[in-house]
């Protein structure tokens, strides 16, 4: 009996093996195929298509990542209101459930599309490709993609963005960059948010900055507070630079 699938064929290879006349006509003989195929290739191709779609409209997308509760949505609301007269911003909101964040963004005055990932822990290029035509961002606008709050998986999935922006807050640990190095490494800009709360929490900003440098020497760090308005001008200046 064939040992591979249990069929009644006696493998030819086995019959010829003893005589040294090994021939490769046995249906059950195993062959190895070299593949060398990138497992995320489909996502990467989708991301390239998104980039092309955005480029045709002269739009630039940013992939905003963080753990849940770091203040991504609050920062976007404030940014939309502050830049209302100078910059058109549209938003793709990713959450496992609810349309709460898209509602908040619309209330701030921007076009928004909500993606609910269900059990999914990150956005992928295909989800963004489906959301873009609904969002229909005006030519030259900035598309903010607020990813699912998660510092692990979104690092792997290119969405077609120009850069990843990581938001970390002073109410989290100052060793976060060392605990989640992949995400901190993937980000071009790191925003340290809620610095208005810094006097009340044991967050060591120098230790945080050193940890970022250790993991990602090329990242820019901007400390800010979206509620009190600290250093938002630096964030807005960065947005102008990155979308040129």
């Amino acid at each position, binding site marked *: 009996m*064939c040992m*591979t*699938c249990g*069929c009644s*064929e006696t493998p030819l290879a086995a019959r010829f093996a003893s005589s040294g006349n090994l021939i490769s006509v046995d*249906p*059950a*003989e*195993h*062959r*190895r*195929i*070299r*593949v*060398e*195929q*990138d*497992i*995320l*290739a*489909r996502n990467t191709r989708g991301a390239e298509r998104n980039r092309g779609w955005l480029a045709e409209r002269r739009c630039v997308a940013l992939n905003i990542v963080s753990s849940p509760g770091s203040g991504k949505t609050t920062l976007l609301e404030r940014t939309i209101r502050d830049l209302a007269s100078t910059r058109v911003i549209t938003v793709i909101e990713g959450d496992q459930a609810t349309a709460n964040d898209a509602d908040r963004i619309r209330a701030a005055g921007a076009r928004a599309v909500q993606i609910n990932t269900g*059990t*999914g*822990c*990150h956005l*992928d290029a295909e989800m963004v490709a489906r959301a873009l035509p609904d969002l229909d961002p005006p030519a030259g606008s900035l598309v903010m993609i607020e990813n699912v709050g998660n510092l*692990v*998986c979104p*690092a*792997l999935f290119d969405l077609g963005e120009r850069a990843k922006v990581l938001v970390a807050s002073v109410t989290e640990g100052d060793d976060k960059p*060392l605990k989640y*190095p*992949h995400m901190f*490494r993937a980000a071009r800009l790191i925003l340290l948010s809620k610095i208005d709360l810094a006097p009340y929490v044991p967050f060591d900003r120098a230790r945080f900055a050193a940890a970022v*440098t*250790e*993991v990602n*020497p*090329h990242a820019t760090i901007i400390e800010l507070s979206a509620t009190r308005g600290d250093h938002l001008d630096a964030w807005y200046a960065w947005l102008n630079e990155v979308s040129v």
Partner: protein
Amino acid sequence: MHELGIAMEIAELAAARAGDQQVHRIVIEVGAFTAVLPDALAFAWEAATEDSALAGSTLEIVTVAGRGACRRCGAEQAMPAIFTRCACGGTDLAVLAGEELRIRELEVSARCA
């Protein structure tokens, strides 16, 4: 969590490549810096392939250790973590290996009648 999606992607790519041949083994490379847990992926593999033509196939995960070259002194070295300090004091290392996430090889046979 994302391992299930990755397992399904591997299953789809392998099935497409194998065509009507029976797949017995799939060898994949997972770099140390990919944020993919080999154990979680192996667990997800069973769920992703049950009731499919790939059911019963083996997913062999080859972990690729991190290697890098210091951008300051050029020294090539093992990278035990994504943030590795070079002996020269440099912290900026170009990753040479450890970011792989790819199918290396399939082991197939013709399907028996």
